[in-house]
């Protein structure tokens, strides 16, 4: 039954769909030199959707369409930060896309559809909605990765992403069908009760394993991380910025929605152990392989894998404080990666990708401010106080220790020490090396981008100095 109430609950999503359709139509009728209109309209749509998400937030969790869709604090926070990262992606990538003749309206439309997928995914109340949101997100992402269709690397990355992503979706769907078979329900709210009474525990267990494989794929956790470095390296940097920020928030949202349906109880211990193994592998593989990279996008890809390891540590705890820590981590990671990729976008120009680490040589001599922003991002990613990334790691470690898993905390910090090296290497290249003669590295002269990038990077420092409110917000989300 479609009721007025359901529509109100879904208002931000409905608005977004309608607005994107308008955007698509409008873009079809404007001339090439008027593309700025599309750009600003897309930004306005993102901002208004974010506004609707925040203002439309009910004081307590509500569900719509018979429990298919849930609007609670978790969905609010994750949607909001996904929209913020998309906003940053739009602002950062205009000069980049322009220089590469990729500045088409489809970029905005596809990204907005992807973020709609994110919003559905993080608000999912049923297995069907999870799948729906995920497919909307990933199908848009495949197209975004292949956006530079004349580049072989970009196409190769898209094919890899598509094949492996389809495999993951298949695995997830397969797992869901098994779970449905074992429990007879698709509703996440009833799944736990049904799972306790099932007379087919093995089927349920298999379903769970397949589902976790799917989740690990989407997060990019080792050993299901193979697609990530190629996609990061091959895809246009503008797309990667989206994949590294909003998509990771979505992946966390999906993991939380699906896994929390299986706790507490016997099944909890099973997925906890699986996640712990995934976390350790991601931490080790991500950090070790990142050391030998020479391409900064690839380096950040392996760093993502390692960061997903930390995020999983928060999920392993499977308690409100653990989820809050993991969500805090996902947010911090999204904001850090937009800075890192934002600087890469800012330093790239027509015919020059600025994606080798050596391209950053002597950046401090050429552009002090960009070097400083990148340094903030690197120290934050490395987890050095007083930056945001440190406190995110702190809460993750706390979650692991609270759960009595001291050995996981030790693995995590040893991994952090290894990880420190490659982040420091980027700082070293920027600050201690002399610039290569003849290579002109200057940031793009795009004022909105420079301001937003500065704001984004300084937020890493500001949120490091005062992260209390954001964390209490995350805590409240899981308190009820």
């Amino acid at each position, binding site marked *: 039954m479609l009721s007025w109430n359901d529509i109100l609950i879904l208002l931000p999503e409905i608005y977004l769909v309608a607005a994107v359709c308008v955007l698509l139509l409008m873009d079809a009728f404007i001339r090439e030199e008027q593309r700025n209109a599309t750009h600003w309209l897309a930004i306005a749509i993102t901002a208004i959707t974010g506004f609707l998400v925040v203002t439309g937030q009910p004081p307590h969790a509500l569900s719509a369409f018979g429990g298919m869709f849930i609007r609670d604090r978790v969905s609010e926070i994750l949607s909001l930060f996904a929209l913020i990262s998309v906003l940053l992606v739009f602002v950062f990538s205009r000069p980049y896309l322009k220089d590469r003749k990729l500045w088409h309206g489809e970029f905005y439309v596809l990204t907005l559809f992807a973020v709609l997928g994110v919003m559905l995914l993080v608000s999912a109340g049923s297995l069907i909605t999870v799948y729906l949101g995920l497919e909307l997100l990933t199908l848009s992402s495949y197209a975004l990765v292949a956006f530079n269709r004349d580049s072989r690397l970009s196409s190769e990355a898209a094919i890899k992403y598509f094949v492996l992503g389809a495999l993951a979706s298949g695995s997830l769907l397969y797992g869901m069908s098994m779970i449905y078979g074992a429990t007879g329900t698709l509703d996440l709210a009833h799944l736990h009760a049904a799972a306790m009474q099932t007379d087919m525990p093995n089927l349920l267990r298999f379903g769970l394993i397949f589902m976790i494989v799917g989740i690990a794929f989407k997060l990019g956790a080792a050993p299901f991380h193979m697609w990530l470095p190629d996609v990061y390296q091959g895809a246009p940097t503008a797309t990667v910025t989206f994949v590294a920020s909003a998509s990771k928030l979505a992946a966390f949202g999906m993991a939380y929605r699906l896994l929390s349906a299986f706790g507490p109880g016997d099944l909890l211990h099973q997925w906890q152990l699986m996640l712990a193994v995934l976390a350790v592998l991601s931490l080790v593989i991500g950090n070790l392989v990142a050391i030998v990279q020479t391409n900064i996008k690839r380096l950040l890809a392996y760093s993502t894998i390692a960061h997903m390891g930390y995020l999983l540590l928060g999920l392993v705890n499977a308690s409100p404080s653990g989820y809050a820590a993991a969500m805090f981590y996902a947010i911090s990671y999204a904001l850090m990666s937009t800075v890192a990729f934002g600087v890469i976008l800012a330093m790239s120009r027509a015919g020059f990708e600025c994606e080798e680490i050596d391209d950053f040589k002597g950046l*401090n001599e050429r552009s*002090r401010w960009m070097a400083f922003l990148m340094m903030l991002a690197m*120290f934050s990613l490395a987890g*050095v*106080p*007083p930056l945001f990334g*440190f406190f995110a790691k*702190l809460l993750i*470690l*706390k979650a692991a*220790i*609270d759960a009595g898993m*001291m050995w996981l*905390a*030790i693995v995590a*910090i040893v991994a*952090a*020490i290894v990880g*420190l*090296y490659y982040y*420091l*290497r980027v*700082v*070293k290249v920027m*600050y*201690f090396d002399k610039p290569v003669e003849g290579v002109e590295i200057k940031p793009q002269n795009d004022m909105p981008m420079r301001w937003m990038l500065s704001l984004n990077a300084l937020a890493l420092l500001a949120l490091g100095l*005062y*992260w*209390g409110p954001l*964390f*209490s917000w995350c*805590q409240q989300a899981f308190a009820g």
Partner: protein
Amino acid sequence: MSNHLLSLLIWLPMAGAVPVLIAGARGSASRWIALAVAVATFVASLFLLPAYHTDGAVMQLVESTPWIASLHVNYALGVDGISVALILLTSFVGVLVIVGAWDVIKDNKPHQYMAAMLVLEGLLIGVFCATDALLFYVFFEAMLIPMFILIGIWGGPRRVYATLKFFIYTFLGSIFMLVGLIYLYHKAGTFDMATLAHLPLTMKEQSWLFFAFLIAFAIKIPMVPVHTWLPDAHVEAPTGGSVVLAAVMLKVGGYGFLRFSLPIVPDASAHYAWLVIVLSLIPVVYIGYVALVQEDMKKLVAYSSIAHMGFVTLGIFIAFMLVRDLGNVDAANLGVQGAMVQMMSHGFVSGAMFSCIGVMYDRLHTRMIKDYGGLVNVMPWFTFFMVFFAMANCGLPGTSGFVGEFMVILASFSANPWIALIAAFTLIIGAAYTLWLVKRVVWGKVTNEKVAAMKDINGREAFVLTAFAVVVLAIGVWPQPLVHLMGGSIDHLVQQLAISKI
């Protein structure tokens, strides 16, 4: 104002870094602003002396505001006598390094250098003020960033290797402490250091925590066998970096032992005191020999720093032996006091030694001993200072170097004469490597024409060296004010040692 004096001391230099950066590389505006900020910080730190009551054992000038309310983490500051002494040392050295770098860094982004120095100073003061363990940790780690930049940009030829080693080594140590602190938080529900000091802990817990703290502070101070980052960092760092590193940063390690290991895990510290004492005696003797064969002046002083810091850890941990095994509280007091005086003294002496080497390096651009010789003929004033600091470095009575070492040796004698004997060995070996350095560099005939062309120190350099010399002499002749300043707090600390927490 005295309510927020500590916050002022922390944030003034850090905020001052912003106008310094804005002033830019051209002209001397950035230097003057930096100097003004550093002097203002030093003057403000002098207000600590009247504001602080030396008889009290509790933290004073306390500030506390909720930082992360949901986790009960506070922005909590407070000082006792030990902190006050170290803050004064920091702000004093802060002025001198800026004066010292006045002309030296002129052509290579001086504003960034000055800004990094000021940020570092603020963070160091923060470490000495924090009474919340998380806040302490934030300052403790954050100071690696400006130091990393200082060594990496303005350092010598192998600076990148040295600075990476420095950063990763120290990070390695402190992150284990972080796990320990989170564990304590897990038990106590707070990061407040005074509460943690009263938290009952089993011997097993204490032992793990003890080693977590030990690895963090042993690397920082540094102790054998985790000292290898220090010679590299010192050799490659610019003069100012070396001065701050030796004079203040190493003290953070000793301070950490006093603030964390002693009050929070006293039983484990007592149980493993023998280990730390052995690790302190090894550098006193072995590192002394290593220093003897160095060909690089900075490396020689770096090794001598390790040997001197061995006295600090010896003085701190001999107190456990004295209190727990022998019940000799007075001697224990003497040991900790000696350790603290040694920290202060080493701060001034090593800072001065590195400044002297900096003066020579600015003229000849080499740190090799063999490139020098007969400086007394061309630089009489410089020789005066150099010889004076060398004497202080080998612990000549009348200089500050003697006081601390003597107190520690005296305390160890009450514990075990053999320990005292080995520790006293440093007086010989220390004299050997320092005086031999002086002999080769300063005395004798002028060895080459480059040395013959060297000019004596100018007014700016004389100011820096005089400032150091006055303090070294003052503490050496009349240590009472310093001992009195720290006395109440040390008494309190030693009383805590006797109380078992199991």
